[in-house]
């Protein structure tokens, strides 16, 4: 085990990692930016070190600052949390070059899974279905029509050189395809200087389901079930739950088993998450892998009783997993509500301020992972996550009933939060039926979604 770990992150995850280190009996140093000097993690830490100014590029995103801080404070490992440097394979490599351990997959594993395209190919080869698409680039209109026919409409035209949704177009008929190919080609040429296009099946009412895995250095891996992250607003998750209401128990097990088999075969190591799109027929298509601890990891902890952060640290330290798939049992149902400093009445614009009064919800099955405290001044420099309310129940209806109580109990005065959208969700018929897809909110828009709940 490590002797001392540098926590190179902030907010609730810094607090979470600090707890994990202490549970393991490992010393920890919290690396913080000037803006986080009064943060809860810094207050709770035995040791804390300022690594730079508020600007994340010069602090939490600065590999030299983070690594130098680890060295001068006598750490032998760095926990990057999520976001920031957590999936930067270059960073992981430099960490290793300085004789320190990156807590996450080893650099060569990160590198292997760095490209989404290559990872899809790799894991596709290990038996995971990926979203059907054209065989390579579209040569001409006829080829496009043939490939679309084979894939099945609707299809998505994607520029090879694009990214982040730019230049994409969805078509439902051959006629639409012919027209759109011309436009996309010229747009792609203009935007990226490269007019190659390919096709992908368009999954309309899809759900976002992800499988949590943990694999040790000895190739021994387990899955810890899946999570449903379909509830999103503009592609940002804001509620996660497990198990997914989208699939029956047999289908869930099968998906999770295929996932763990594939990543072990592909040489993955440490904790990670495989993301899938699930279509209305229940087909799951692999999209990408997240090589880090995720924001929503606590719902898996509630179901399995397994601490994912200490597991992550132990694996990085070279320890064997210490348990097998048969030891992993899932109990009940859990939901995680991301509590953000967002003004739901003004298009979710970020809010900032000082926490004047803070009451943490409690009771059976209720867990609040947060860095808030009365008097805390939320700095305006980082993301809007104030904490995560995690609620467990023996079944989904009980978990939902408890969630309503817990959301009502939560008091954060001095800041505007997004609690209203969670409360709206908990009276939404589609959500209550467990039939939500990723466009649940965006289909009608947040304002209409909130207004419908108020009626």
């Amino acid at each position, binding site marked *: 085990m490590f002797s001392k770990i540098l926590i190179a992150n902030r907010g609730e995850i810094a607090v979470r990692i600090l707890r994990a280190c202490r549970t393991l009996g490992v010393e920890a140093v919290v690396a913080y930016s000037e803006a986080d000097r009064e943060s809860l993690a810094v207050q709770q830490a035995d040791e804390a070190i*300022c*690594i*730079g100014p508020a600007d994340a590029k010069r602090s939490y995103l600065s590999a*030299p600052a983070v690594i130098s801080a680890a060295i*001068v404070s006598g750490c032998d490992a760095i926990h990057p949390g999520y976001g920031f440097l957590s999936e930067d394979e270059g960073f992981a490599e430099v960490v290793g070059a300085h004789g320190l351990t990156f807590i996450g997959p080893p650099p060569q594993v990160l590198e292997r899974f760095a490209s989404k395209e290559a990872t899809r190919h790799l894991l596709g080869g290990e038996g995971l279905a990926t979203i059907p698409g054209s065989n390579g680039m579209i040569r001409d209109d006829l080829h496009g029509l043939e490939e679309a026919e084979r894939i099945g409409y609707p299809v998505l035209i994607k520029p090879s050189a694009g990214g982040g949704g730019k230049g994409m177009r969805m078509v439902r008929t051959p006629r639409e395809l012919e027209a759109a190919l011309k436009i996309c080609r010229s747009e792609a040429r203009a935007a990226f200087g490269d007019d190659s296009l390919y096709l992908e099946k368009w999954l309309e009412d899809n759900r976002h389901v992800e499988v949590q895995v943990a694999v040790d250095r000895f190739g021994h891996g387990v899955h810890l079930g899946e999570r449903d992250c379909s509830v999103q607003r503009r592609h940002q998750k804001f509620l996660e739950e497990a198990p997914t209401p989208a699939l029956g128990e047999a289908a869930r097990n099968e998906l999770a088993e295929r996932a763990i088999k594939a990543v072990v075969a592909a040489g993955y190591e440490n904790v990670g998450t495989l993301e899938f799109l699930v279509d209305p027929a229940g087909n799951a298509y692999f999209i990408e892998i997240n090589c880090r601890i995720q924001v929503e990891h606590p719902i898996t902890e509630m179901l399995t009783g397994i601490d994912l952060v200490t597991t992550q640290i132990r694996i990085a330290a070279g320890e064997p997993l210490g348990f097998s798939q048969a030891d992993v049992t899932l109990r009940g149902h859990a939901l995680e509500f991301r509590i953000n400093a967002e003004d739901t009445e003004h298009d979710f614009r970020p809010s900032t301020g000082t926490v004047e009064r803070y009451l943490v919800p409690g009771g059976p099955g209720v867990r609040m992972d947060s860095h808030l405290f009365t008097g805390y001044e939320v700095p305006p420099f980082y993301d809007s996550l104030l904490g995560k309310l995690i609620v467990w129940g023996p079944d989904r209806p009980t978990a939902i009933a408890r969630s309503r109580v817990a959301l009502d109990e939560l008091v954060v005065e001095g800041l505007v939060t997004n609690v209203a959208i969670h409360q709206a969700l908990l009276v939404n018929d589609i959500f209550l039926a467990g039939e939500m897809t990723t466009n649940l909110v965006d289909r009608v828009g947040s304002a209409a979604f909130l207004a419908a709940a108020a009626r």
Partner: protein
Amino acid sequence: MPDRDDAARLADHAQIEGLADDLLPALIAKLGATGLAELEVREGDWRVRLRRSADGTTSGARTTPGRAARSAGGHADHAHQQPAPEPAVDPYRAAATSPGVGISHSRPEISSGSRVRAGDRIASVDVLGIPQEVVAPVNGIVGAGLVESGDAVEYGQELVWIELISTAAERSGRDA
């Protein structure tokens, strides 16, 4: 709310005016002279409080001493600690602070007593092998070093005092 009667109002006024005439001047003198943050005086049901605004008189982050050198104390105790009140800026001197987290190195040509100008490079901090310059924040004379060459320092940590030119002479006279 019902109107207050005239007698009650007059009594209030008398109390407040008593405060204003008798106590306020003393209060003001005291607060002005000592630099205390806040003073409050009560008379009967009334109290008057004078408070110095924190803005403009303390500089915030730079005045908190570095934590990197601090060894791990009992964290339970630490968690119970209230943040220490921030010290007022010293009118006689200013500290040069660390531009990064790393190992501090002195410059051979700079030592206690060296005369420097604002912006002069007076030391460096080695961040993963890359030296980052520590610059003098003001014109003055290099005073006491707060760290040794080779010490681990964190970002923003005060490294060395620069005595202000205008007061350095006066003080060195006193110190001698």
